[in-house]
């Protein structure tokens, strides 16, 4: 034995030397390592080969493979180990001279749920295609973001991770975080979010869909984005369904977590504003004393007093503990994460007006070049996110198991918004249009959002052919905004008449422009103060039952499924607003002079009705009930070795009712809305070869309007420049979806997918900027503007070259809708004409590219990611050609991590390195705003008008992860 070992050593040395001298000793061992359940490639797993005393180790590279090159010929024992996975048994592999020995190994995860049918560790000697990932085996068109991808991506919240999936673009909140996804051009409202397959309510008071910035990425094991629906899925995911699969219990004690910190470039550049949230009254005076008039003293000034300073560093901790007990029958996992971060942005908005200038003819859009006012805003937010999940699973026996899952998510935001409002004049100062007055507003607000969910699931196998599963879920989402308080001061600004002079207006020879060498400011006075309380609660109770029968038809596998679900949803919405009238200096028409916020006085004497708040007649106070019942039947049939189909039909019955505090003499105080949808679908997959397939699908889906989209209540609580008002006559949308996709998996982790899609939308809902009952004010109103079509193509390509990987995805979407718009031609009444345009929120071009580097030897990972979203419509104008567009944006993010020892990983992330602005513009002649003596700020071109320009600046974070 000893001799043999020595011989082996010599032999190895010989081969090694020979290998240096000759290239003919080319025998090697090669293969890939994957997760037996998901098929996910396990990059970084350690592969050990042993041949007598020869022991060699390597790791699985970024391309999903391991390779031992130029090994001495002979029989090797091979074994794979990886954190979170059961170390495999030893397999025998023969390295024959000048040949490549292939061994692919599928590992079993510690966390594999125990009743998953027959998932076993295995090894295969076939070519690279044994690793099937979820995308390849799923029934429908799907993209999956794995835990590993999440870990090494530059993102800390789920929504930012999603922005790297093909066909997905995102909406950002005022903190710069991605908040909602737009899937293949279908606006956020068309997409749904699930936790472990269960739909959860939204704390958002305006939207049905959940703001994804509430989810810390640490809690999520995997994200699945389904772009086509099967009959067992709820029918309201026309664009797609985002399923967040949360962490599940491992099979032995597992402790992992991270500790990190970070900072925003914004607060290197300017100071951070904060206020004392302790004095915020959780309820409005009208809730504390129903029916009574409030007094000024009910509105403490303390929470309006802000202070500025350096933002503290961000803090970020998470911990996951899981284990299995009772002879592995009971699995337990708890995961908690807490993030405290300081974010903000600087924003510039010019306020669009209701009226436009006349056009010379019907083919020239009206002109909207003039604006009366603009906002400069600085946001400072402290965001604290708390996320916890707990999951218990119990396996009674091989055929029966249940799982109890609970989650609580909380996002608290404490925000100061400083607004500097310019009201424009007709004179010029330093080449720009000057102001008649300046308002300075300080707004402080507290946003408390939370979601909790408890889900109980069971899986039961009655016979080998018949099995079923069920789910009962109870969820509640709450959003509170106690005391959105705004304090305002004003001063007038006038030109220096004696020292200024008239100059001809370069843009208009008939006008003279008065150019002032300096501005004379009037005294600073106190304006009206506003206070607002809102809260809303969404409660969902839902149940699902799915029956499956596995049989054979003509000798081929056929899986029949049928099931049903119900959801009872209730929402309470409350709002109470107060306007505190300012006081005048005795004996004058002038407002009180400003000295400090505590010293400012207000009185209800002049407007006694204001002391009662708005809630009594405010349609923003409403309750909403929605009952959905769904049922389906479907068959998955393997027609041949290459072709399988899944088809069926789903029926959904919708009942909606709301009751609002709108006065009885107005339409829309209450409404009852019912409808039934029949939603057929078919998914087919045809395998061209072992690693190439074509998928095609047709399905019908629906979009139910958000609750707030019905209620005729002008709501200006969000930061939009315009209030939002509902429309009780809104129709729900039905969508016919067609998909075709070609897939090619040339390597384990390499992939190429290309596809096309076509969607026909009946009654799509879009938000229009139009004058409502408030006359001169523009309101964002949901409308059915006609039918639309949406088609496009996407491709995904990933290629790995050893340690370096490149990933690219691109989606082209062409959506078209033709609607009637107003046009005001000179000397004619306002007339109508058609305009064809893309759907709102839909960018024609969306692309992502990432460059990855992974060096196993030194344990270094790095990723440079670019995401691009082309121009898209942000708001629809009622006027022809005057829609508000969002400029194309390119985001660059970087992340890197380094393994330190066995248990620690140091990471660094940097987001938004290009400080990409969020910019809105109107495509119109902008020459008078861009040049001459009366220019507006932030104008970039004589051909379009910039109406919003927001900057978020880069964000940095660093920390370490640990795993035991």
């Amino acid at each position, binding site marked *: 034995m000893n001799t043999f070992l020595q011989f082996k050593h010599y032999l190895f040395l010989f081969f090694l030397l020979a290998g240096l001298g000759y290239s003919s000793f080319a025998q090697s061992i090669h293969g890939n390592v994957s997760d037996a359940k998901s098929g996910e490639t396990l990059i970084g797993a350690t592969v050990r080969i042993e041949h007598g005393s020869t022991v060699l180790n390597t790791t699985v590279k970024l391309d999903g493979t391991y390779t031992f090159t130029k090994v001495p010929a002979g029989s090797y024992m091979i074994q794979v180990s990886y954190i979170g996975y059961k170390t495999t048994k030893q397999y025998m592999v023969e390295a024959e001279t000048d040949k490549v020995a292939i061994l692919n190994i599928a590992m079993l995860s510690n966390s594999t749920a125990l009743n998953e049918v027959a998932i076993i560790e295995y090894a295969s000697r076939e070519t690279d295609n044994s690793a099937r990932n979820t995308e390849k085996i799923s029934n429908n068109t799907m993209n999956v973001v794995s835990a590993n991808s999440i870990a090494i991506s530059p993102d800390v919240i789920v929504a930012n991770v999603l922005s790297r999936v093909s066909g997905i673009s995102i909406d950002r909140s005022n903190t710069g975080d991605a908040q909602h996804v737009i899937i293949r051009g279908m606006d956020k409202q068309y997409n749904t979010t699930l936790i472990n397959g269960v739909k959860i309510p939204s704390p958002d008071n305006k939207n049905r869909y959940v703001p994804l910035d509430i989810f810390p990425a640490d809690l999520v094991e995997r994200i699945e984005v389904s772009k086509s629906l099967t009959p067992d899925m709820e029918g309201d995911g026309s664009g797609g369904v985002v399923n967040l699969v949360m962490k599940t219990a491992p099979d032995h004690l597992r402790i992992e977590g991270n500790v990190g910190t970070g900072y925003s470039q914004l607060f290197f550049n300017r100071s951070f504003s904060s206020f004392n949230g302790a004095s915020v009254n959780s309820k409005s005076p009208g809730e504390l004393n129903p029916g009574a008039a409030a007094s000024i003293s009910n509105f403490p000034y303390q929470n309006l007093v802000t202070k500025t300073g350096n933002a503290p560093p961000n803090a970020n901790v998470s911990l996951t503990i899981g284990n299995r007990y009772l002879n592995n029958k009971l699995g337990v996992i708890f995961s908690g994460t807490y993030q405290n971060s300081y974010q903000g942005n600087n924003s510039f908005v010019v306020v669009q007006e209701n009226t436009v200038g*006349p056009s010379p003819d019907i083919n020239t859009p009206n002109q909207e070049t003039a604006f009366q006012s603009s906002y400069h805003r600085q946001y400072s937010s402290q965001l604290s996110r708390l996320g916890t999940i707990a999951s218990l699973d119990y396996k009674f026996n091989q055929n029966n198991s249940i799982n109890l899952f609970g989650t609580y998510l909380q996002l608290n935001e404490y925000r100061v918004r400083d607004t500097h409002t310019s009201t424009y004049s007709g004179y010029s100062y330093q080449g720009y249009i000057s102001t008649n007055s300046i308002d300075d507003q300080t707004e402080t607000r507290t946003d408390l959002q939370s979601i909790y969910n408890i889900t109980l699931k069971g899986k039961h196998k009655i016979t080998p052919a018949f099995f079923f599963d069920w789910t009962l879920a109870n969820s509640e989402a709450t959003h509170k905004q106690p005391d959105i308080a705004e304090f305002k001061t004003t001063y007038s600004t006038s030109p220096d008449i004696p020292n200024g002079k*008239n100059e001809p207006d370069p843009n208009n020879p008939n006008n003279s422009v008065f150019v002032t060498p300096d501005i004379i400011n009037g005294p600073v*006075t106190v304006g009206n103060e506003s206070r607002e309380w809102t809260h809303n609660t969404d409660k969902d109770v839902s149940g699902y039952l799915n029956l499956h029968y596995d049989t054979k038809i003509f000798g081929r596998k056929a899986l029949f499924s049928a099931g049903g679900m119900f959801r009872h949803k209730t929402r309470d919405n409350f709002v109470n607003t107060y306007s505190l009238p300012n006081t005048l200096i005795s004996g004058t028409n002038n407002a009180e002079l400003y000295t400090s916020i505590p010293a400012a006085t207000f009185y209800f*004497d002049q407007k006694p009705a204001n002391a009662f708040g708005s809630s009594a007649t405010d349609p923003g106070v409403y309750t909403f009930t929605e009952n959905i019942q769904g049922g389906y039947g479907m068959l998955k049939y393997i027609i041949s070795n290459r072709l399988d189909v899944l088809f069926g039909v789903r029926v959904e019955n919708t009942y909606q009712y709301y009751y609002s505090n709108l006065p009885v003499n*107005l339409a829309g105080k209450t409404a009852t809305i019912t409808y039934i949808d029949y939603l057929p679908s078919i998914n087919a997959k045809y395998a061209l070869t072992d690693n190439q397939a074509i998928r095609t699908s047709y399905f019908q889906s629906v979009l139910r309007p958000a609750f707030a989209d019905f209620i005729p209540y002008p709501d200006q609580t969000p930061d939009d420049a315009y209030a939002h008002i509902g429309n009780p006559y809104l129709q729900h949308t039905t969508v016919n979806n067609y998909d075709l996709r070609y897939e090619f998996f040339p390597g384990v982790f390499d992939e190429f997918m290309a596809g096309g899609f076509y969607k026909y939308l009946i009654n799509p809902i879009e938000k229009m900027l139009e004058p409502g*009952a408030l006359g001169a004010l523009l309101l964002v109103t949901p409308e059915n503007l006609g039918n639309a079509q949406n088609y496009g193509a996407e491709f995904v390509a990933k290629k790995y070259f050893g340690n370096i990987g490149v990933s690219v995805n691109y989606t082209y979407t062409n959506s078209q809708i033709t609607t009637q718009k107003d046009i005001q031609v000179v000397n004619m009444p306002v007339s109508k004409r058609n305009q064809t345009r893309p759907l709102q929120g839909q960018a024609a071009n969306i692309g992502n590219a990432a460059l990855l580097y992974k060096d196993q030897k030194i344990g270094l990972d790095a990723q440079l990611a670019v995401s691009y979203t082309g121009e898209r419509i942000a708001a629809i104008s009622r006027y022809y050609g005057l829609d508000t567009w969002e400029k194309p944006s390119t985001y660059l993010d970087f992340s890197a991590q380094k393994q330190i020892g066995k248990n620690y990983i140091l990471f660094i992330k940097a987001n938004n390195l290009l400080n990409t602005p969020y910019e809105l513009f109107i495509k119109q002649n902008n020459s008078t705003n861009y040049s001459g003596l009366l220019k507006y700020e932030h104008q970039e071109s004589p051909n379009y008008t910039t109406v919003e320009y927001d900057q978020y600046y880069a964000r940095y974070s660093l920390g370490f992860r640990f795993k035991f």
Partner: protein
Amino acid sequence: MKKLQIISLCLSLFALASCSKKTDNAVVSVPLYQVGKAISNTGTLPAGSYKGTMLAGQTYTVSGDITINAGDTLLIQKGVKVNMTNGANFIVNGILVSLGTSDAPVTITDPRRSKTTGPSTAASDSTYKGGWGGIYCSNTSKLVVIKWTHLDFGGAALKALPFAASAGLAVGNQYILYFENPNGVFILEDSWLYGSPDDATRFYGGYLNIMRNTMEKCGGVGGDGFNAKGSSIGNMAYNLVIGGATNGTKTASDGTTAGPCQFTMYNNTYINDGYRNTGVYGARSGSVEIENNSRALVYNNLIVDCDFGVRIAGGPAGAKVYLADTLTNTTGPIFKTAYGYNYNYVDNAAMAGQIVPTSVAQAVVTHPQSTDIPNMAAFLGASYTFGLVYDGTSLVGKNNPMFVNYPLPAAANFWVTQASVDNYNFHLQAGSPAAGKGTTNSALIKPITTGIPIDPVFGSSEITLPGADMGCYQLNGNGNHH
């Protein structure tokens, strides 16, 4: 020869005297018009739907909104006093007729308030707080007639929307009169509006005759007097507007797609307007403002100590937004905005510098007119371009209009605080430089009659033609009868 003259004069006087004695001087009562049942004035009238007639001379107390349903008519006979409490409103979906007479006007008021004379400021005078609400007319309201009626202390904030407004109404609005039916008729004649916190009126549509009224103390720290928007069409003539916070009369085609707002504005008298607006609109307001695609004919107006003269607004930065419609149109009734024969008297250089408004606050497209007094076309010269800032110091105190009783030149800042008529008298003295200098040329200015019915009850009493004496009081007794 002289004797002959005296004799002939005596003879002719005798002849005149004998002529006037041909008919007896009999004052015969006219029948009181009544619709439906009488409304009892016992107790208070609670909120609810009302129709029928409020009887002459009675006093009614109202404790909640009086709603007139579509198809119903509420008629208020002469001499009625309506005490509005709890900030109540008239909500008009049908027809409202308030038929005061010069001898027995109707009064709608808030009993908590009383009128004060002398200096008035927003801080000191409760007149600007809004007592009762207003008369809010929906787009089903076909006709509103208000004659010889005192509308005192209106403008309490709307607590709830009275109807689904198609134009410009929101909770919290504080108007006295609101009308939005583009096919309706709104007659406001020989009436008085006294005190309001914001715009006294908002007209978004319909055919209107706003004639021979007196408006005092309207607008707290902002608010226009007669404010026409939307597609409203009609006349604003022979009105006296004193102490308005912002503008006296204004047109703008806001909030409609039904067509441009078109008004004649002639023979109005504007006194001390535009000084209680300390906000941004105060920086560009005073007497007459024509803006935002509306058209107007503005003639024979008498403007005294107002912050601004007649302002034809242009768009900021030369753009079209806010620009009055100054083009020649093929559809009327007003085909092209025009103005002239307006009279300005100013008491300081700041006012003088805005007789032809400058573009300092906002762009303007006002042409100086040679028919104006003073002759601004001559004063500014041929090189004038829109918005030019000029020195008007030499115009201060010139062209005193010679009111029967009002101190001109006024003491400094008198114009800021004198916001009501009190015992002053804005009739012209014979020999006033404003007398006879107006135009009656119907090619320049004639009232809009389209759509305005003439009827003692259900229409206008009289659409008074333009008068030669500038301002609302004619030396021959025509015009404003207050």
